């Protein structure tokens, strides 16, 4: 045992637990549960082929547990074998049609199979029924909405608002995505409002003044861009010295300068 664990130490305790499970299997080779358990360990260790082999072995030995279907689907999903993944998650959902984690995985599989309508339908159920959604879920949902129809910013923005409603109005990852969508949808006034939201909401806003200036240049409002660049400059000047010396702020100062000079060149 000692000689076995020594070279494995570098890979952490997971490798050791796999080795232990292998010994358990050799002592009780007809136990389908043990293969399932070792498969879980392999999966955690990202040895997906070994994981799948163990799951299938467990299944062939008569393990018909629904959790096994889920794991098989997940491993197929992780190895991009989406058809096989779909088959297994469908089997799972036949046993438990209400399981939201499985519904979510199914929607993700549909997404990768480019069955966007089905994906959207499934994910909508997940979003509306999951007790505690996360910002990541809302963003994924928006992504599916736009995959299904790349002009449907209205629905994507509605989903963002739903997320803000559920998770708190200032949830940053959703507010950032909202800005992207407003810009992509060409809703310039709303996009500017969104920049102002960040400027007003946050205690340090030098980055936001600059980003807003850049956008104002893009939408051909050079004078407003010029004012926003001035704001950015003043905001940087008002920072404590230690922040002024940080890489991102030094970089920002250079970006402000270069945008300012390109604006001046446009004028003359």
């Amino acid at each position: 045992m000692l000689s076995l664990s020594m070279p494995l130490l570098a890979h952490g305790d997971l490798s050791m637990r796999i080795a232990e499970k292998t010994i358990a299997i050799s002592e009780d080779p007809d136990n389908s549960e043990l293969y399932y358990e070792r498969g879980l360990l392999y999966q955690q260790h990202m040895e997906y082929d070994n994981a799948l082999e163990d799951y299938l072995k467990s299944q062939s030995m008569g393990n018909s547990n629904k959790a096994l279907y889920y794991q098989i689907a997940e491993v197929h999903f992780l190895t991009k074998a989406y058809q096989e993944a779909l088959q297994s998650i469908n089997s799972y959902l036949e046993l438990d049609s209400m399981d939201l984690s499985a519904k979510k995985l199914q929607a993700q599989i549909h997404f990768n199979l480019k069955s966007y309508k089905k994906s959207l339908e499934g994910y909508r159920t997940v979003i509306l029924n999951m007790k505690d959604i996360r910002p990541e879920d809302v963003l994924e949902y928006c992504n599916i909405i736009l995959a299904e129809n790349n002009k449907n910013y209205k629905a994507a923005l509605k989903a963002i608002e739903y997320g803000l409603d559920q998770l708190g109005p200032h949830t940053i990852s959703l507010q950032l995505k909202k800005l992207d969508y407003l810009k992509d949808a060409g809703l310039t006034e709303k996009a500017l409002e969104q920049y102002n939201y960040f400027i007003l909401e946050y205690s340090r806003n030098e980055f936001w003044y600059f980003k807003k200036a850049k956008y104002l240049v893009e939408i051909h409002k050079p004078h407003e861009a010029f004012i926003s660049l001035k704001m950015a400059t003043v905001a940087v000047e008002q920072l404590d010295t230690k922040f002024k010396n940080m890489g991102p702020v030094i970089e920002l100062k250079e970006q402000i300068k270069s945008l300012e000079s390109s604006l001046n060149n446009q004028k003359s």
Partner: protein
Amino acid sequence: MIKKSTFLLVALSSVFSFSQTSHVDLPNVSDVAVTMPVSHPQHSTSVTVVRGPYLQSGTPTSVVVKWRTDIATESVVHYGKSLKSLSKKASSNNVTTEHEVALSGLSPNTKYYFNIGNKAGVLSESVSGEMYIITAPKAGTKQFVRAWILGDAGTANNNQRNVRDAYYDYVDAAPKNSGKTDMMLFLGDNAYGSGTDEQYQNALFDIYDDMLKKSVAWSCLGNHDGKSADSATQSGPYYDIFTFPTAAQAGGIASGTEAYYSFDYANIHFIILDSHHTSREVGGAMYNWTKADIQNTKQDWIVTLFHHPVYTKGSHDSDTEDRLIEMRQNFMPMMEANGVDLILNGHSHSYERSYFLNGHYGFANTFNPDDISKGGHTVGSNGYGDGKVDSNGAYQKANTAAEGAVYITTGSAGKISGGDLNHQAMSVSLNQLGSCVMEVEDDGRGGQNLTVKFIRDNDGIDDYFTINKSAWVLNTDRNASGQKSAGLLYDADKDLVRLDVDKNDKLKKVKFYNNIGKLVKKSRRKTINVGKLPKGLYVIEVITNQKAYTESITIE
């Protein structure tokens, strides 16, 4: 529903006898009546507190008190500044075994004693005053802060108890601020083997009961907590037990999730990440939040905690495991560039502590001990030293550079698991049981020292180091009010701005733009009354017959 009927019942029970009230035809009432100890004092003794109280999500003005009872009952917290007079009350009529009461409207930096109970009376108290809340100081306050750091503690055995007792001995005997622990920072794997509720009871509540009653506990998610917790739905024991700020209630920026969040304490900004379940991708939701959050803080110190270590050659290997590599390569460049000072990780069951580092994102064998100015990975003339004040000297964080951070992998608060323990970036690597204490205090010259000590299970202090920020680094002008550019005079008392226009120029137009770039005031005069303008930053565009330029002012 329950809330309503309970309220009614209480009102009735003061008029009718208990047996009469139970006949009132209301939904849920009979259930409630059985556990209502109001008119049956013997019932109150039958309700027992089986978990807590423990403190969560502390801010300068609020805290959440949580506890569990064996029988469902109401939640009442009595509190006050004097132990003899707990005159204030926060309560919920909801009948439950899982109690969660938020106290708000508290004063910053203030000690409140408290007890917990139900409507019938007190269920848990400390007559000697060992149950209290000390509210957080206002963000930005410079004062002594002590945090107890526990990584991978949850074995529920004597190793864990010995490590705990060594810290209790340390803090009781501390020459300064003895007995004071401002917070507990758990680095994940708080309860083996899979963070179930029962395992949490044994490894967290039963072990740290005394401390949890007087010190706010914060945590990040470990892989063993993750086995029974589902970050995708924020459900399971980990998310049930802990209550973390999702909407920036304790400072920072709203993450919208308890999986990762931040908080301010005194002049320290803490960033808590989920390195286990959540996507660690650059541009992912957690990354975007972290970047926005760290670029929004004005705090003097930035500390981050997450479970999977950036550098380790212990029972895990940061050269081969994906989560560790991803946190290092994806998060650390951005966090270092924005001034992170201290990184606390667990997972490997050992104590490994780095030199004063910057920019080391490769494998252990690519570590270059030279200073960053020479292409290496350490910062300052003694960055490759031991960081001890009485030896190679404290690491120095100058205000001319954001670089320099110490990484600690401290996951031996419950067990040790060995390993090669030879990561080149580590100044110290020990296969010993222990926990860490972080203390931030005055350096006696107007600056501050952040010192971390590794306290062994046998009370020995086997490692320590200090990061110093001089007075000049800390001495900051937090109040931007009244700042202005050179070309104008501002008389705040008279609300007057006077432009200093070139003698040869003739002033034509003056325009004031507010903080969102909106034109809010026009003038043609050199002296302008700004009494009607709201406080904030303004850019002033000045146009003369010769030129156009801008000035700026922050109106008080």
